[in-house]
């Protein structure tokens, strides 16, 4: 269906990524945000705090990020589209109730405007070092969806995508911005509401007694949800549970429960993954990049092409699930992957794993606090070409 016009600020705007993300959330139908101030994400919450009273939304500043994420999960059970927003240290605190959302299969969006870490790190400067935390940060086995925008326009567009994916797959979606994208101001075009596609939550319609919140006919199917207060008397728990949501503490229940969490994403990965390719076909060298780094890589890419090196760019819009299949395909055809990122080697490990020795992988690392000099990326391309 289409977005509710009340939440769509149609027009041409000159705004930063944080504000664009907030507007994307409102356009997507998000009406609940629980958050805690943290640089460089605070502007998202500030903008929501100002906008929500005008669109019928509920913003609450909680006492910490543990509470923020817990409130988001609680709110979603009442039927809301809910989100929270944070950065590194807060992201760490949210891992606990991110796990609860994953286990309860609760749709919601968690925005992380990444800064430099570990610990307090670089509060005002960029990083992309939470990528593996996004994948593995909460304990136990699960699959997750994570997106990485590379412009304020994408902060708007992909926040809507994040909510839509979350509703489709009953899973929290991580929106992995970085400080550069969050604080970068550019033109953002917000379309008319009837141009914004929204995935509404699928609610159960049958007899109340027959509702099973964790019923799935095949490993990848998704049960509809209900709203607390509608008389279903549901139970949801962070414990391993059966199809009714009742705790069931044994290995068979664990197998069914956890494999569903994994398989609903893993076996549907091709429906979820979004990548943007630029001259990848026929390339010898492929840069794999995401977020701000996918923009910083462009001058290097252009210079390499000028020098006659067949270079392509594979931009990860969804980071998780990882485009394993595509990397495997490319590894058969190309010579080298060049992977610049604002960390000391995270996605490069995934690329290397999927390339499985059939193509070389050159990580172009950077500890964060700034962005790569395109020259460094070019050097890696030249190294790969020789």
């Amino acid at each position: 269906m289409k977005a509710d016009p009340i939440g769509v600020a149609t027009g041409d705007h000159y705004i930063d990524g944080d504000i664009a993300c907030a507007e994307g959330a409102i356009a997507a139908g998000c009406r609940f945000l629980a958050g805690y101030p943290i640089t460089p994400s605070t502007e998202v919450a500030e903008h929501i705090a100002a906008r929500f009273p005008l669109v019928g939304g509920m913003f609450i500043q909680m006492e910490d990020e543990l509470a923020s994420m817990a409130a988001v999960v609680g709110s979603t059970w009442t039927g809301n589209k809910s989100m929270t927003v944070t950065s590194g240290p807060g992201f760490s605190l949210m891992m606990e109730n991110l796990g609860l959302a994953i286990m309860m299969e609760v749709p919601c969006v968690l925005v992380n405007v990444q800064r430099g870490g570990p610990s307090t790190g670089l509060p005002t400067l960029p990083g992309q070092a939470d990528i593996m935390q996004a994948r593995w940060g909460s304990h136990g086995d699960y699959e997750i969806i994570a997106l990485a925008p590379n412009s304020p326009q994408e902060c708007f567009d992909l926040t809507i995508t994040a909510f839509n994916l979350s509703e489709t797959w009953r899973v929290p979606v991580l929106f992995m911005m970085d400080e550069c994208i969050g604080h970068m101001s550019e033109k953002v075009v917000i379309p008319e509401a009837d141009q914004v596609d929204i995935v509404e939550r699928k609610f159960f319609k049958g007899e109340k007694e027959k509702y099973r919140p964790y019923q799935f006919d095949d490993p990848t199917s998704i049960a509809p949800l209900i709203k607390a207060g509608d008389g279903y008397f549901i139970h949801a728990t962070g414990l391993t549970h059966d199809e009714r949501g009742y705790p069931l503490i044994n290995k068979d229940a664990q197998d069914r429960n956890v494999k569903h969490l994994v398989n609903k994403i893993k076996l549907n990965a091709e429906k979820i993954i979004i990548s943007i390719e630029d001259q990848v076909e026929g390339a010898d060298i492929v840069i794999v990049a995401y977020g701000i780094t996918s923009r910083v890589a462009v001058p290097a890419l252009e210079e390499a092409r000028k020098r006659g090196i067949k270079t392509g760019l594979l931009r990860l819009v969804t980071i998780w699930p990882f485009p394993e299949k595509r990397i495997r395909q490319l590894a058969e055809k190309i010579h080298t992957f060049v992977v610049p990122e604002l960390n000391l080697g995270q996605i490069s490990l995934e690329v290397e794993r999927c390339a499985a020795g059939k193509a070389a992988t050159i990580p172009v690392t950077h500890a964060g606090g700034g962005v790569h000099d395109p020259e460094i990326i070019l050097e890696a391309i030249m190294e790969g070409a020789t």
Partner: protein
Amino acid sequence: MSSTVKRDELNIPQLEDDFQPLTGKFLREERLPHIWCSTCGIGIVITAFISGLQKSELDPEKVCAVSGIGCSGRAAGYLRLDSFHTTHGRAIPFATGLALGNPELKVVVISGDGDIAAIGGNHLIHAARRNMDLTVICINNFNYAMTGGQAGPTTPIEAIASTTPFGCFESPFNLPFLAESCGAVYVARWTTLHVRRLADSISEALTKSGFSFIEAISPCPTSYARRNKLGTGLDEMKFYGKNSIINNGADTRTVDISFGSKITVGKFVDIERPSFTENRNHLLKKRLGDRYIPFGGPNGH
């Protein structure tokens, strides 16, 4: 203490007509038997809760139960309500999300002293400060029972716990004082012996706007009582019978509990103060006028 006590010795009042035995209506009978030990008091609190809920005449479809982790954390799972078993300490913020997400709901947190006052202590004080529309029933058994009887934020000085083998030397929280000083509008404490009064308090709290807090002192025969040679749960009930002092309206600063001390019980606080939602609506209407759209849309809450 003797390990067997006759009912008469306990001086338990006869159940009144309005205190109906449990039907299956509010329990998930298919989940029974429950996990709690014989003579544990948590089941009594659940009974009192159901009784209080019935008395409140709230529509059960609009009542949610939320628990954290621990023995008491299993409470929500046995109640035939929309019920949520959340993470350790986070029942109150989860419940905050539910209560704000649909203000028609009455959201009740039922959890233990460790869950609510230690790992969840920050959430307790802030929910009270905001006067969030929540009822918190904190079942206090003076230790972390699920994990084998470790000391917690309510363990009295000198009490033995598995992590205080020579006696606890940290000062415990006085929970009613904590709740009141942070802004709760309703504060009561009862033991599991005071089932009727506990149920009455729960009923009052359920029908009150804002943040209400009820401490329910409960026996823990397997961990706390055993280590401290207090006998069975029934012996602990006998202790409550002899040592509880009902003092409604007591100054909460005076109701702290020491090892083996008298236990002051009663309804301590029952005041009026605008809730989070009332304050929010009031201020936003004042500042934004007709531009303000209450949560849930123009015809929303």
